[in-house]
């Protein structure tokens, strides 16, 4: 008896909802096997991962803190992904936004203007978009693959950050530590909940989600991008410009990532340093797909992914799991998601082999 994959004629909404759920269940199962092999009680590990973060005010604050950038970036990326524009360099665009906003904050370090923070958000957003725009330009002008270009631009952005924090933007009073001076209060987001680190930048992510929903579900531009992704021939037939789709897809993703970068330096960090993001730009790719590239699905996916981040930290302390367990969880989730997604569009068929 053998099996083969057959393309399904229709995909049901039920299947689309089942896929992320099945991926989560499989991740938990695989996770418990791993934890058992490490000699840890899986139940205790899961408790640390998924219950502990939500049982304290501080924990909830941390989850929301991590959810903000993930949500923001994933919404931006998903718009590009729906048009089959593969921006995997959101990490670099986030850094670009963080650097630009920091430069502004440090230049006006004595300012108390209420306009400083909005200006930083704008500059950071534009910087992220510009960083992604390089990839859009290379793709439209020279047909350079945007997957490679955005990815490599991430490495460049990281080197640029290292240069800035050890040179032009280094704190002159900072004992040669590779980091900038602390931002002034006017350059920081106000706290949202007392005794937590979560701040008002979360509202940017929620507002972006609403905008993304309107863009994707209601706007003609969103429709054009969708057609370009579903049926490139039909988009050409209707006269929707492919170049415009590439530009729009990359610029929106870059802008969202850049804005998320501002949220980091003007939020929990309060300065520019060598490490800005624990891989939000890459984790957001998983979030976008786990959310089915749908603005509402992404909200849940971002929450779940943030939970894994915080849970990873907590399990480190309470169960003694290795540092990398959160990363492993993310990886498992993506792999299982992709595997399950295959079955949303395909089914297994028995094939009898005769001899």
């Amino acid at each position, binding site marked *: 008896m053998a099996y083969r994959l057959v393309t399904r004629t*229709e995909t049901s909404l039920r299947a689309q909802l089942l896929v992320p759920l099945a991926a989560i269940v499989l991740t938990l199962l695989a996770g418990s096997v791993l934890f058992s092999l490490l000699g840890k009680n899986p139940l205790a590990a899961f408790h640390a991962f998924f219950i502990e973060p939500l049982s304290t005010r501080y924990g909830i604050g941390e989850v929301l803190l991590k959810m903000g950038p993930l949500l923001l970036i994933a919404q931006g990326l998903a718009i590009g992904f729906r048009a089959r524009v593969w921006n995997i360099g959101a990490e670099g665009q986030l850094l670009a936004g963080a650097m630009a906003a920091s430069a502004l904050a440090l230049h006006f370090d004595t300012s108390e203007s209420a306009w400083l923070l909005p200006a930083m958000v704008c500059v950071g957003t534009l910087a992220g978009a510009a960083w992604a725009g390089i990839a859009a330009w290379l793709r439209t002008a020279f047909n350079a693959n945007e997957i490679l270009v955005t990815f490599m631009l991430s490495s460049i952005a990281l080197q640029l950050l290292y240069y800035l924090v050890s040179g032009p933007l280094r704190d002159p009073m900072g004992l040669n530590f590779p980091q900038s001076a602390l931002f002034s209060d006017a350059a920081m987001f106000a706290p949202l909940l007392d005794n937590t680190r979560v701040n008002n930048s979360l509202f940017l992510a929620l507002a972006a989600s609403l905008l993304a929903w*309107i863009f994707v579900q*209601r*706007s*003609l*531009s969103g*429709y054009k991008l969708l*057609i370009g992704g*579903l*049926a490139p*021939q*039909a988009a*050409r*037939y*209707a*006269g*929707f*410009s492919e170049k415009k789709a590439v530009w729009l897809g990359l610029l929106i993703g870059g802008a969202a990532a850049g804005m998320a970068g501002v949220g980091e330096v003007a939020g929990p960090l309060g300065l520019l340093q060598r490490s800005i993001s624990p891989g939000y730009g890459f984790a957001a790719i998983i979030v976008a797909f786990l959310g089915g590239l749908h603005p509402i699905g992404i909200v849940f996916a971002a929450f779940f992914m943030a939970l894994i981040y915080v849970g990873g930290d907590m399990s480190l302390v309470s169960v003694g799991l290795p540092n990398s367990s959160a990363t492993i969880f993310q990886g498992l989730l993506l792999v299982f998601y992709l595997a399950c997604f295959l079955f949303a569009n395909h089914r297994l*068929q028995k*094939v*009898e082999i*005769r001899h």
Partner: protein
Amino acid sequence: MSALLRLRGITKVYPAVVASDRIDLDIEPGEIHAILGENGAGKSTLMKLIYGVSQPDEGTIQWQGKTVHIRSPAQARQLGIGMVFQHFSLFESLTVAQNISLAVKGSIKQLSAQVEETGEKFGLPIKADTVVHSLSVGERQRVEIIRCILQNPKLLIMDEPTSVLPPQGVQQLFETLRKLRAEGCSILYISHKLEEIRQLCDTATILRAGKVVASTDPAEHSNESLANLMIGRTIDPPVHAPANTGTSNRLRVKSLSHVPTDPFGTVLKDISLHVSPGEIVGIAGVSGNGQNELMRLISGEELHTIDDAGELRINDTCVNRLNPLQRRTLGLGFVPEERLGRGAVPELSLSLNGLLTAYRHGLTRLGMIRFGAARDFARQCIAEHDVRCGGEQSLAGSLSGGNLQKFIVGREIALQPSLLVLSQPTWGLDVGAANNIRRALLQLRDSGAAVLVVSEELEELFEISDRLHVMFDGHLSPSLPTRGTSTTQIGRWMSGEFLQEAATGAENH
């Protein structure tokens, strides 16, 4: 003697429709058996059930007297059922023999000999070492048929085999099929071309709405009576009144030459044509002679490059460098050959598919889609062109080919183009649906629009067009008034004779 294949009470229900409704069918050894029916009558479903692509919900299939469950095409082939699909499954970059070796056991050398020998025997001449991309559509069909024959089928299913052939090719194919019959192979012949069925087939089973309505000897019927059985009502062919042509040109192509970006595409050579308001101009020719390339250049999906010669004008504006959208703004409407994935997006509803080209016509406000207006627009297309579907929220991919085509044509006509260009407007459609579309085109013409139609079906071009061009190997013939010409002349031109005529004409001057 028992039947080769016997279907009893075969029923297949899809969520929206009963595609096969208690079908009984007997195919005798060594007969050519036609399956005749409108679009959506259930022909394709029935073939899929016999070839094992899908399984019936009820009923039994007997093969040589034994009840069988055909679960896959591989199993069907093992039983001795072969099928030649409408869309070929050949690898373009492999040779004929290599392609066949993927399905038939044996070394390339043995197969090459077998291929040419079989080809010889059945009137399907082909060279086994030719690379498939250099073959014409007719030759590719030969490869498909030979591939089936080499597997020694007892039953060969042919799905609309003549839709890709020129008139001469059709007769050749019939000879082949008759030889196969003489060898004892039965043939299940799916078509909606009544004349062919009367000429070729021993028995015809006529389907209507998933049911068998008659099983008869087609030679005893006239085209009209067969058509009546098929659709259950009489069809009036559209009245072809002379054109009332304006003097201006809606479309003018001047000495156009073009090298397509696709390396396997046909190079267009010095093409000139014009279409005036109130006339339908047809372009005949076997497919693959540059029609697709010309259509893409006119629609703007492929751009005229700086290296290309000539000029394209729509409503007196040079459109060489304009994109499809800008050309639409000048009054162009276009119906492409591929319905799924080009003319429509299968994953989206009809309502969203209407938006594809109609969004500029009041279906958006401030960059936002007016979903209510889009639904109304789709409903209007559905109602005006009798599109059979579950409503404007049905997915385009769930419609039968003919009904989707009616929707696409309806959408383009509803946009009131001053120039409508269509590629294979009734390809694969039944008589009723095709007549509806032709009537709509004549109406559009009479309202003063210019219409350009590319088609492989000569009858269709003769029925609706006022002037005819022929395309061959990237050349376009001069135009002939349809009323003053014959199918024989056009048929000769289709094999390139107009080029020689032009050459001798030039010598004489």
